[in-house]
């Protein structure tokens, strides 16, 4: 009986303790390294390597740490996954149901964020999101849960926050205003006091390296547990602390193309040894940074008190710092280690190597100096002089062991230059060179790669289909990555893509430089576009064009322009008896597909086979319109950028200059009739001018001539069809819902008629199309402030 009473009493006490034991549900976000996971490709890991950065990996390590620390602190925990395989990537509604079924008091969904801009932007700050409008959580206290967590996360000093150190908190209905009341999937229907935390930005690459560190992830999980303690009023319930930090070189810069902020610009120290020493100098624990370029170390569960932390690297001098550990708190102790440097700096090698009597050098030759130590960049740049003075810029490589000076523009032609690095130039440890280092060289006569021709030209009206951008230069362009220096943007700033398989550029055997880049998609008539040609377009010697080109042009429907002119007379029909008087040996006539739906007149020619400088096309039997004074003759031409001149002739002997063929694709060319009387077109003359651009283009070409009419103004719509990488829309055709997917969060989608009228808009990633008439639409997907547009069909 006594035993029974004791057992019952013990059970009751245990039950009471259980009743007061907070229960935390942990959801490490994503999982399985699948399509809904987030992989950031950072060296040395290849794309898809599961050992590289995947959000699911770091989320899981954080979750493990949170589970471990909460259990030590006397919490109950549940966790949605312990592995990172596809089967563990539970559906959103399953996660919600599991949390509800567990009876948890709070729910943490652990994530990291992405700006969607990849390595081109530097965003890194933590953010908490709960369900509801900001300040009005659907589950009461969810805002407090986020605030209590944020207070701890933002204190993380191992990282670099880019927003000044503020924890951002939003309700998901406010943060994603276009989603309406859908919100985040793991919060929808979740009855626990719940939040999703985006701990940092994993597409800020230095942070991605840190997230590879299990120690760094552990600290975030531990900090979550402190947030939970703060929320449940249990901050005094745990008697151990944590020491952690980041070890970096005090001056060597991280050499990478991605964005870096603050101390992240300096290299982390791999494989550094860190010792935790008590006040008597006795070693308490030893840690080591890993070899994954993050510099993170960690001492877990340290007794409160005063300590010293000693850090030393294989190539760095040791450094000791004091640290005070408090119970249930994180002590951050970062190190900036000095590299060991024990001799003065000298220039080991330098280029160019030039002496009197040598051939002059190119006008863009860089000056490169290689040192025996990593150098103090500021002192080197101050000690560097070039005479005559030239504006230029320095780039540092090989961990500041090598500096390159390149002129911003070309050097002056036929000029002797003297370069001196003064004796005051120091290495990273502060020791100067002690004596000057000097070289001289002389430049040759050519400064820039000169542009011969470009299409489109400024303010050109360009037909919407099959635009071929063309650029010609006076010498061969280096074709390596040449296409990357050509960009076409729509009026929203979206860059259009080229049909890369169809890009053509100069070969070594050519006599001048050219590149032809067809656009992958048609233009939208009425829209303004911009062609940008980067200044980096250069020849094989690296001689570039004088400056970046910005060329605005306008998309039109050339056929519509012609039709708006009134009655259209086809020129490629069988009733037109076209001939080439005098040009039979070197030119030919044929019919080819025109722009108006019928046949166009195709004229092939090769001036190299004749002494003639013009070619006449007779149009016998043509019943075209009669032109009076003040009328405008309009003809559809498909140009070959030959720079030939095209003239329309009339039966009564008038020559009406139509256009210079300085374009590719179709164009509605016009000529004003300024003579009294009525005039009928009876042919065309193609004239070859004495023009260097013609000579460079070659002598052969093909011209298509389609309908003939009077000119009227065109019409346009204003919808751009530009798609962002990684965004897709389906199913197509759709009967119920159109759903968009993307690598980043989708803020909203719109369905737009082809005439520009928006018929549906939703703040989520889908649109219900059951009530929308069947037809072709454009679906606009808004992602991170950018818009991707997709042609879709709604079916019934």
């Amino acid at each position, binding site marked *: 009986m006594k035993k029974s009473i004791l057992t019952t009493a013990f059970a009751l006490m245990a*039950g009471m303790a*259980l*009743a*007061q034991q*907070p*229960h935390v549900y942990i959801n490490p*976000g*994503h999982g399985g390294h699948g*399509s*809904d*996971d987030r992989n950031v490709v950072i060296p040395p890991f290849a794309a898809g390597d599961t050992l590289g950065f995947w959000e699911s990996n770091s989320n899981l390590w954080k979750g493990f740490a949170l589970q471990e620390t909460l259990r030590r602190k006397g919490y109950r925990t*549940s966790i*949605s*996954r*312990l592995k990172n395989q596809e*089967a*563990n990537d*539970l*559906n*959103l*509604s*399953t996660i919600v*149901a*599991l949390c*509800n*079924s*567990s*009876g948890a*008091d*709070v729910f943490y969904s652990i994530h990291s964020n992405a700006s969607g801009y990849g390595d081109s932007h530097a965003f890194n700050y933590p953010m908490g999101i709960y*369900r509801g409008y900001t300040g009005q959580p*659907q589950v*009461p*206290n969810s805002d*407090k849960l986020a605030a209590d967590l944020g207070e701890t996360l933002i204190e993380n000093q191992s990282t670099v926050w880019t927003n000044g150190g503020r924890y951002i908190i939003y309700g998901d209905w406010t943060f994603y205003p276009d989603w309406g*009341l*859908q919100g*985040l*999937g793991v919060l*929808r*229907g979740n*009855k*626990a*006091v719940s939040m999703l935390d985006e701990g940092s930005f994993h597409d800020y690459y230095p942070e991605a390296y840190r997230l590879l560190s299990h120690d760094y992830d552990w600290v975030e999980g531990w900090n979550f547990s402190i947030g939970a303690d703060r929320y*449940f*009023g249990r901050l005094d319930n745990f008697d151990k602390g944590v020491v952690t930090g980041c070890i970096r070189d005090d001056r060597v810069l991280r050499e990478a193309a991605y964005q870096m902020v603050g101390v992240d610009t300096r290299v982390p120290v791999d494989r550094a040894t860190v010792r935790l020493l008590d006040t008597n100098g006795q070693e308490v624990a030893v840690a080591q940074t890993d070899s994954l370029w993050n510099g993170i170390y960690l001492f877990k569960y340290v007794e409160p008190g005063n300590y010293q932390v000693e850090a030393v690297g294989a190539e760095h001098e040791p450094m000791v710092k004091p640290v005070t550990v408090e119970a249930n708190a994180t002590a951050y102790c970062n190190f900036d280690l000095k590299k060991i440097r024990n001799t003065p700096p000298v220039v080991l090698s330098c280029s160019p190597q030039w002496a009197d009597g040598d051939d002059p050098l190119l006008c863009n030759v860089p000056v490169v100096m290689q040192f025996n130590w990593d150098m103090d960049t500021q002192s080197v740049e101050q000690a560097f002089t070039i005479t005559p003075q030239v504006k230029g810029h320095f780039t540092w490589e090989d961990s500041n062991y090598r500096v390159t000076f390149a002129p911003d523009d070309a050097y002056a032609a036929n000029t002797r230059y003297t370069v001196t690095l003064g004796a005051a130039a120091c290495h990273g440890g502060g020791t100067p060179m002690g004596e000057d280092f000097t070289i001289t060289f002389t430049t040759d006569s050519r400064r820039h790669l000169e542009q011969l021709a470009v299409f489109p030209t400024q303010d050109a009206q360009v037909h919407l289909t099959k635009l071929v951008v063309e650029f010609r230069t006076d010498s061969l362009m280096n074709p390596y990555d040449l296409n990357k220096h050509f960009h076409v943007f729509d009026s929203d700033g979206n860059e259009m893509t080229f049909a890369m398989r169809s890009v053509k550029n100069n070969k070594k055997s050519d006599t001048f430089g050219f590149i032809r880049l067809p656009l992958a998609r048609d233009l939208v008539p009425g829209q303004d576009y911009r062609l940008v040609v980067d200044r980096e377009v250069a020849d094989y010697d690296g001689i570039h064009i004088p400056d970046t080109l910005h060329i605005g042009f306008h998309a039109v429907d050339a056929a519509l322009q012609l039709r708006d002119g009134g009655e259209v007379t086809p020129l490629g029909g069988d009733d037109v008896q076209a001939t080439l008087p005098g040009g039979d040996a070197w030119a030919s006539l044929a019919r080819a597909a025109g722009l108006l739906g019928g046949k166009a007149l195709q004229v092939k020619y090769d001036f190299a086979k004749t002494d003639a400088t013009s070619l006449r096309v007779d149009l016998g039997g043509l019943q075209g319109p009669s032109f009076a004074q003040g009328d405008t003759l309009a003809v559809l031409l498909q140009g070959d950028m030959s720079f030939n001149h095209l003239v329309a002739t009339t039966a009564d002997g008038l020559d009406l200059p139509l256009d210079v063929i300085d374009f590719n694709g179709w164009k509605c060319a016009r000529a004003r009739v300024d003579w009294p009387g009525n005039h009928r077109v009876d042919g065309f003359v193609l004239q070859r001018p004495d023009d260097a651009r013609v000579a460079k283009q070659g002598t052969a070409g093909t011209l298509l001539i389609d309908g003939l009419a009077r000119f009227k103004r065109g019409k346009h719509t204003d919808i751009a069809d530009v798609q962002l990488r990684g965004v897709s829309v389906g*199913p197509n055709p*759709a*009967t*119920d*819902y*159109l*759903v968009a*997917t993307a690598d980043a969060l989708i803020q909203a989608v719109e369905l737009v008629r082809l005439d520009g009228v928006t018929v549906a808009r939703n703040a*989520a*990633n*889908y649109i*219900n199309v059951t009530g929308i008439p069947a037809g072709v639409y454009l679906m606009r997907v808004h992602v991170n402030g950018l818009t991707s547009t997709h042609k879709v069909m709604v*079916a*019934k």
Partner: protein
Amino acid sequence: MKHLLLTLLATAALAGAAQQVVVQEHRRLLQGVEGPAYYPALDASGTRLLFTDADACGLKLYDFNDDVTTRITALPGAGMDAFFGGDGKVYYVTQELREHNLVYRTGHAYDVARHTDAVVLDAQHGAVHPVKAMRGAALKGENRSFRAPATMGLTVYTEGSTVVIGRDGRERAYTPVPSHAGYLWASLSPDATRVAFFAAERGICIIDLDGNLLAELGNYEMPAWLNEHYLVAQHATDDGHQFTSSQILLLKDDGSWTHALTQPSSMTMQPTAARGRVVYTTIDGNLFEMTLQIVEP
């Protein structure tokens, strides 16, 4: 949806040796009457329907016989896992925050015939599991539970990674398949011979009353018995933040046959079923009713 109906009929006509599914009726429910509705739950007769809002706040009852909707409660959390007991009453759980920010949950029973609501399980900290029973119902809390009546016949619920089957109060927990994250959505077959439940990382499982695994139907969610041999379930995909597709599937209880009742792009979800009637909702809360006839080969 008209397109869907035609598709299904065509599929039925073309199917040779397989089961033929005839959609006898497919219509929008409560259009223009109710706002967005989620988590529908039919009673065993398929004539009464519970539903709630997207956050399970409040609970409403729709009666197919008289086309009347009744508000049972407006309390938060009530709409999640609300169910009809074997006694015809509606059982549901609400929640509130108490000292130290702990969540306390309270069990309620709503008498449909009398339109009365009563607290049957006082507030307690921790989970309160709905227990479905042949007769009556139970709410099993971590500290206290409610049972009505004492002898409920067969009962079933999930707790962690176990499915618990009771026979007149004697409960036994089974783990027929491994699942770290846990089991969910357990229900008795209409003939009370088997149990369907969902095992995370695994999918829908069918077991007998002794816990023996009979079949695995696939990694779908929210199974609901349509009749003795068929179930409906949700098949959804997501990108980690948002749903990217969701459809309703019809499944044979032995795992031998699966049939799509809606397309993945339909964003249809949260099915419930009874006696040939299926009710589901869409991602934006539109309720639909579908009645099915399945012709065996």
